[in-house]
């Protein structure tokens, strides 16, 4: 009899430690969202490299447990907490930028420099969201962190959120990556709304060949100009241009291959998983998160509209033959290369021979620089 009592007690004790005893509706909702993200990544192939780690991370982060076991991402000393350190301290984003730099070809930008201005115009989305967030009642620091979602650049969003609003980082990162994945869904209606049939048929001149010398000088010029103006963007832009120099110098191929291959893959896995795991239901399922998602969508819409609108404005001053197809305006948001791919797909819908991909890559990579500069400005003003 005593044994039976002890057995029942043991089972009851064990049950208290299981996820079943600690589960809440919040956990289940977040796990469902995680599975949805994984499904989006696998079935629809929307940014699978990001959505699958984030989605799985959401499941990992929402397995219910009793506190104190050192397993949760927010528990000091847990393995996930150590990995999350790279997110909190902004270590991962610059490393990702190193890899992006090492895999980005800036030729499209160098050959047609005016496209760089589209990348600047599209950053308006960041500030539209910033203003909206202030109007809703967020503090300036929170508004700045939310606004950066409009930069459509996950690492930049994480970097800025870790400094300005660490408590909101999970929601901001997930929102940024979700909308980046949904670029093919969000952008086309805005592009169609703002352009006429005639404008969509504009054929742009093929880009000229860019010399090796120009490609080598670009990262050096780029870092000097941008970081002298906005030193707070140094971690991101420094690594971006350094990675690009590794690639373009052609004498450091092994380093470039590591940066744009194994290194960026490892960091993407870590950042995706830990950001996903940071969305614990208790922290994530709040009204603020809903507002952040709403403002994120708004910022993407404004960014796309500003990019397309700016191309139309530029075209007023350009001669026939030099005009820019406004369908590449959406690429000013970073989201490399998805936004450029949207330009290509939309362009081909109206003219089967109008390949806009190379042209769209110009504003697309300019968007990366622009969003990092914008993040640097926000950091300079608000941190």
């Amino acid at each position, binding site marked *: 009899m005593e044994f039976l009592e002890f057995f029942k007690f043991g089972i009851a004790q064990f049950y208290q430690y299981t996820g079943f005893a600690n589960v809440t509706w919040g956990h289940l909702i977040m796990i469902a969202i995680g599975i949805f993200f994984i499904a989006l990544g696998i079935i629809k192939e929307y940014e699978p490299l990001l959505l699958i780690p984030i989605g799985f991370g959401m499941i990992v982060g929402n397995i219910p447990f009793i506190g104190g076991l050192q397993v949760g991402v927010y528990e000091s000393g847990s393995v996930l907490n150590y990995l999350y350190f790279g997110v909190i301290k902004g270590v991962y984003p610059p490393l990702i930028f190193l890899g992006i730099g090492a895999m980005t070809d800036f030729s499209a*930008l*160098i*050959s047609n*420099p*005016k496209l*760089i*201005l589209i*990348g*600047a*115009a599209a*950053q*308006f989305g*960041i*500030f539209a969201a*910033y*203003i909206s967030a*202030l*109007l809703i009642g967020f*503090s*300036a*620091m929170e*508004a*700045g962190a939310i606004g950066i979602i409009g930069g459509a650049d996950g690492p930049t969003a994480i970097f800025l959120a870790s400094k*300005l609003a660490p408590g909101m980082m999970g929601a901001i990162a997930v929102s940024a990556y979700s909308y980046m994945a949904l670029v093919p869904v969000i952008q086309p209606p805005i592009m169609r709304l703002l352009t006429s049939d005639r404008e969509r048929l504009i054929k742009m001149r*093929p*880009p*000229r*060949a860019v*010399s090796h*010398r*120009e490609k080598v*000088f*670009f990262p050096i*010029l*780029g870092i000097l*100009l*941008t970081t002298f*103006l*906005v030193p707070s963007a140094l971690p991101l832009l420094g690594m971006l241009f350094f990675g690009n120099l590794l690639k373009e110098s052609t004498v450091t191929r*092994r380093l470039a291959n590591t940066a744009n291959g194994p290194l960026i893959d490892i960091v993407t896995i870590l950042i995706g998983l830990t950001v996903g795991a940071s969305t614990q239901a208790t922290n994530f399922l709040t009204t603020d998160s809903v507002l952040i998602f709403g403002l994120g969508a708004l910022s993407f819409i404004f960014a796309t509209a500003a990019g397309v609108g700016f191309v139309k404005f530029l075209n007023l001053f350009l001669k026939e033959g030099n005009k820019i197809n406004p369908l590449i305006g959406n690429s000013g948001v970073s989201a490399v290369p998805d936004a450029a791919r949207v330009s290509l797909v939309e362009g081909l819908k109206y003219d089967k021979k109008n390949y806009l991909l190379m042209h769209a890559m110009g504003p697309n990579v*300019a968007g990366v*620089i*622009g969003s990092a*500069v*914008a993040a640097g*400005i*926000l950091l300079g*003003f*608000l*941190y």
Partner: protein
Amino acid sequence: MKINYKYFIFLFSLLIPLSVGAQSQSDLRINELMINNVDNLVDEYGKNVPWVEIFNTSYNSVNIEECYLTNDTTGFAAGDPSRWYRIPKGDPKTLIPTRGFLVFYLDNLPTYGVFHTNFDPSDSTSSNYIALISSSGKTIIDFFEFPPSLRTATHSYGYKKDYGLDSVEIAGVLVKNKDTLDYFTPGAQNYPIDEATKSELVQAQDQYGIILTIISMTVVFSALFIIYVLLKLSARLNLLVPVWIKKYQDKKQGISSEVAMKKVIDPTKADSGEELAAIGMAIHLHFNKNHDYESEIITIETPKVHASPWAQKQLIHRRIPRRK
């Protein structure tokens, strides 16, 4: 003249040590001093003794061990550090954290512990300064002069808003930074009043974010516009530089400039790259077709079997350039 770059690299490497030293003991400053300590800070032994506060101005932790503190003028002039108080090595508390503070008791009782010096500035015959000297004993890191009246005053003396600017704004008024202090703050910042943060000030000035938006968009556009202008210029230079090089080479060889100019390829007729891509693709297709039938064929395909660079000596060693 043939330039030997090795000498340049050697000379440059000599300059590097000059820049080293940032984020080190040289970032330490004497920030606050109190001599007439009647009922202020109490040391570990329950005594009110004069104290000095050291401030780490850098954004890195700095260890103050083996540095010297002194109010002795003759010692430095004679280069004799034996009379100064040398901060003992090995105490973990001598590591001053980023923008952190450390207090030393100036009680002429060094046997009381690491943070008790061998001099007491309350003696009116002693000098009116305290110096912090580097561990080498050769460089004065900070020289802190104080008014003699501090020996009888019931306040501390130092920097109103910690070491930095000569004058600072307090309650909207610009005041001298190094002065009599209104607060006693040993081991803490000298201006303990909670001020609005940078972001709060921005929000107060710009409630709806319009000004920040205008400024930020202007900066983003300016940054990218400058890149745009330079890329335009570099494109022009890229076309002109080969012409200049050719001209220079021809001039060296004694070819007249007119003849040389004829030889230069017209930059406006430079290939766009499309022709080259088409030729490349044609060659690729042509060779691919025969790829299965011919051995040692030239191909632009990457090898199917990737050898590990770790296993191939020629890939992990830089080739030695051949002297021609």
